[in-house]
């Protein structure tokens, strides 16, 4: 793959993860368990979509022609999306939302910690900006993990259920797609194998403090990175792309 195509595709991996998770977080706006946390989660959604925008703008530059952040974000179908299955999982309840966020935040944090050293300065610049936001997200979701895991019996049950339900989507974070592998070999993407033990350690620490445990089930789902998503993804895109599809070429 030509270097430019490789960077384009790798950028989509990053962008789609933030975009779809931001979209999910945005669904909470107006429905949070308490006003203050409604605002907090919306801030996270805004950070994620903001990061996605920077990445889509980079992707659009790489693509050239009439591509914009919006054509890249809104005009691909399910198979073209490269986000992991984890971020497209439904909100379900506050427990699922927090656990999904936490699993992803830990990954996002270590990924960006490496990415700021990328030889590709356009990526390292984006990572340098977003690492501050991600550090805060991780703090926020870790605290909620502990608070709810170690809260009441009911909250512990709900959190454990969410951990059990989402665990099988965490492995994919570290199974490199062909693109991620090549991007690593080309020198501008981190080695997912290095990130994995860091992720594992942090997750184990926080789960322990949360009085939660990792489920025994070992099988891990995969597919999102190569476009083979869950059924949820089609509905996310149906919502997200509705206007762009219904009124092709219109300005908004």
């Amino acid at each position, binding site marked *: 793959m030509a270097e430019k195509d490789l960077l384009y595709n790798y950028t989509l991996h990053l962008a789609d993860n933030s975009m779809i998770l931001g979209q999910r977080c945005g669904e909470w*706006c*107006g429905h949070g368990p308490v006003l203050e946390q409604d*605002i907090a989660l919306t801030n996270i959604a805004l950070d994620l979509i903001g990061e996605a925008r920077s990445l889509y703008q980079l992707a659009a530059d790489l693509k050239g022609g009439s591509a914009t952040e919006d054509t890249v974000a809104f005009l691909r179908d399910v198979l073209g999306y490269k986000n992991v299955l984890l971020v497209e999982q439904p909100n379900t309840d506050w427990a699922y939302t927090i656990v999904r966020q936490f699993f992803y935040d830990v990954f996002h944090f270590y990924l960006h910690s490496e990415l700021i050293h990328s030889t590709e300065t356009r990526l390292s610049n984006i990572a340098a900006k977003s690492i501050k936001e991600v550090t805060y997200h991780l703090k926020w979701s870790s605290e909620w993990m502990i608070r709810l895991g170690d809260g009441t019996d009911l909250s512990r049950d709900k959190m454990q259920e969410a951990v059990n339900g989402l665990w099988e989507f965490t492995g994919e974070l570290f199974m490199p797609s062909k693109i991620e592998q090549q991007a690593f070999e080309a020198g501008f993407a981190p080695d997912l194998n290095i990130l994995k033990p860091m992720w594992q350690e942090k997750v184990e620490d926080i789960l322990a403090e949360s009085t939660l445990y990792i489920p025994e089930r070992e099988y891990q789902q995969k597919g999102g990175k190569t476009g083979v998503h869950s059924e949820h993804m089609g509905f996310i895109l149906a919502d997200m792309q509705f206007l762009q599809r219904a009124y092709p070429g219109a300005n908004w």
Partner: protein
Amino acid sequence: MEINLEEAFQKRIDDEIKIEPRDWMPEKYRKTLLRQISQHAHSEIVGMLPEGNWITRAPNLRRKVALLAKVQDEAGHGLYLYSAAETLGMSRDEMLNELHIGKAKYSSIFNYPTLTWADMGAIGWLVDGAAIMNQVPLCRASYGPYARAMVRVCKEESFHQRQGYEIMLTLCQGTPEQKAMAQDALNRWWWPSMMMFGPNDDNSPNSAQSTKWKIKRFSNDELRQKFVDVSVPQAEILGITIPDPDLKWNEARGHFDFGVINWDEFNQVVAGNGPCNKQRLKARVDAWEKGAWVREAAVAYAEKREKRNLSKENTNAA
């Protein structure tokens, strides 16, 4: 004694001295404010719903972040206002409970559905516009915490109206379909926005007292007239038509004349029969009930941690 207190109180108000939470105030003043501020707070958070609807569907990324930030601001407004109301002696949870059981009201405008993207434009332009018109004078309300909350709110509102108008402008400069969408939204939101200023002055029984207490600085009809006067040229720039055949410039008055408001519709919506009353209230109640275990667990954890810290300190001291 009571008489003297009340006279002194009114004198402070007449002298434009703000009333602060722990100052003496007539019970009716406290109740009136509490009702008004909590209603206002409820309106902000119920008002998140019709627009929140479109966050996942915003047509591009710029619009998506702007809409998210706007709806988030409304949550903030609710929060500032609940805080102001709490200084009058009712907890936020109690106020929310009154909303949830249908005892407290919120602005009727939010009981109308958002059907198209143009509704995001019309709401920002007209609904936030009408709200600003109502709210700017409240920045000088006699009750300190309310006035201060309103200063924050108004500062943030100005972006809301501009983003709404920009959405409308883009649609009106777009394809014929988009322009039709904008016109349709104006058609549906115009009259409900006009109703946001409340009943006509001769039908607004509590207004006199509120004016005397400087909770209210302009009458409903004055504000409504102002709203019409500024909206007409704005619609002209957009090139769409306000759905009122009686709308015309009155040289003698120096204002626009406008048609009669359908107060029957207004009363029906206030009474709970608007198109979305049930759905809006249900969304709020659901959010509250589904969040109960979260709020409880957070308190339980905070208490546990406090205990642990205390016992740690004790062992350290020993």
